[in-house]
């Protein structure tokens, strides 16, 4: 018993040191990306302790300039901008992350199912997805939001359904390559059930491309939700959110004030960071080199 735990500890220590080695070998852009993502996660988790004021607390006059008390000034209602940005990390990123996860569960399961079952199930799902994907995501989201009304629950459900169509395509394509393998045939012949085949045989073999795809889809969802919020159709006040903050403070830009750029930069920085990390990850897992 003791032997096993000792073994486990040395195994996990080994993993840690390997992970550490991998990180030190990472290119500068990937390191930068990892650090930025870590900072965002920290701020999002500990928002109430990091922020100087409460999320929708009115603490000053409208549009106060940057000073010692209000580090980034105040917004159109007199709320502290820095506080709103810190809470935005929790709300904007959290909502985008939740949406992406939902989209992955929905699109992933259907995609793998279409590949494994095949036949009319595959045909039906694929044709529906084709039509959905023919409509640009932003337009489709706006159409559905105007039908069902703008609320956070609607936003999350609508965006995850729209995004699930894109994930369906990828999941179906990568599992198609796995389904034809002999070990799947073997599992079928020895009478394994469908869920077992999916979880034990297919998922482990498609996890690497799906992980990279998760990062890309997150960026896409994050940008689309931010754009919708900026247009006033996404995350609604009084929740602190970067997209709508840009819109609310936009008038300041004509007075040569940088405030509206800060929440926008927060969005841009995170997506760039995630993209850098994915770029490195893809390079690592595909084993491709650009030297030919």
């Amino acid at each position, binding site marked *: 018993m003791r032997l096993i735990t000792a073994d486990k500890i040395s195994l996990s220590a080994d993993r840690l040191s390997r992970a550490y080695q991998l990180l030190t070998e990472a290119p500068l852009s990937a390191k930068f990306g990892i650090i930025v993502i870590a900072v965002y996660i920290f701020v999002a988790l500990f928002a109430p302790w990091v922020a100087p004021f409460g999320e929708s607390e009115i603490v000053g006059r409208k549009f106060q300039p940057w000073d010692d008390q209000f580090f980034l000034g105040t917004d159109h209602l007199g709320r502290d901008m820095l506080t709103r940005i810190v809470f935005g990390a929790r709300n904007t990123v959290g909502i985008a992350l939740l949406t992406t996860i939902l989209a992955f569960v929905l699109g992933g399961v259907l995609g793998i199912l279409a590949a494994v079952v095949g036949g009319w199930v595959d045909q039906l799902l694929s044709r529906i997805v084709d039509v959905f994907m023919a409509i640009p995501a932003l337009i489709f989201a*706006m159409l559905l939001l*105007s039908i069902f009304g703008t609320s956070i629950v609607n936003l999350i459900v609508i965006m995850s359904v729209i995004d699930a169509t894109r994930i369906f395509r990828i999941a179906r394509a990568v599992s198609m390559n796995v389904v034809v393998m002999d070990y799947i045939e073997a599992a079928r012949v020895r009478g394994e059930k469908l869920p077992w085949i999916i979880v034990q045989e297919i998922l482990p073999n498609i996890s690497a491309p799906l992980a990279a795809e998760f990062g890309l889809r997150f960026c896409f969802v994050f940008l689309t939700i931010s754009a919708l919020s900026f247009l*006033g159709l996404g995350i609604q006040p009084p929740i602190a959110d970067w997209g709508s903050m840009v819109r609310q403070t936009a008038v300041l830009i004509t007075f*040569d004030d*940088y405030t509206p*750029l800060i929440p926008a930069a927060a*969005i*841009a920085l995170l997506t760039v960071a995630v*993209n850098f990390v994915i770029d490195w990850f893809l390079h690592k897992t595909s084993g491709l080199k650009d030297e030919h």
Partner: protein
Amino acid sequence: MLLQRILLGLLTLFAITLIIFLGVSMLPGDAAEAILGQAATPETVAALRKQLGLDLPAHTRYLTWLGNILQGDFGVSIGNGREINEVLGTRLYNTIFLAAFAACIAVPLAVILGILAALYRNSFYDRSVNIVTLSSISTPEFFVAYILLLLVSVKAGWLPSLSNVRVDTTFAEHLEKTLLPALVLTLVSMAHMMRMTRAALINLLSNAYIEMATLKGLKRFRVIIHHALPNAWAPIVNVIVLNLAYLIVGVIVVEVVFVYPGLGQYLVDAVQRRDMPVVQACCLIFAATYVLLNLIADVLSILTNPRLLHPK
């Protein structure tokens, strides 16, 4: 192959009209209640329903709706009771003007810069282009828009910060007022075109006939322009058309930033007021343009590739 693709495109268009129509008719309540609002009594609602043809079954209404749209009649806005057509024409013209203007700047620039990146592959220029394009792909349009607005219009004062064009605006004035939004669209759409141009060329450079051309002592510039580029046109043209489709959608956010009276702004306002006939009309136009441009991209790539044109 070609006929098949065109038929598929038309089928997709048909499916989209179905989605847009069915989606809206799923709404609780209908246009009659929305128009009457507080003043609605069961009798007036029933009367107005009859007048608007809402008492007919769904498939009849769909066919009438589709028929009207094919004749260019988009119905009446719930918000102000005016014909949507009155507004739609100028709005659509403005949006197409902006998108076309942006395309005129973005397409040549992206192709040239992409060729240069392929030409000087792995150089400092190529690497910095790679980082800049990767960053600009992942940046929200409004971020780029506000940065340019701050630098060009507020700090330098070269261009107006609002693009308030009217019907009587002259062409030159229109160009001046839309230059800034067009530049924003150029910046956000160029990256993808450039990357694809570079990738298409580099892909070709690994071919044997390019190696042959290099080995017989041709200059690198000549190899790329005369030997690689002609074969790369098909994928590049494909990417350009796909990006025009992207421009049509990306235009929405930019129009809102610059308060430009285009179709995107019209759609955003309509979604906020839940003015469904206007939402239907705008979504249909945007989606149809997108589908048609995608169709054109595919048709062009079939036409420029003999292997696809004459399948075995």
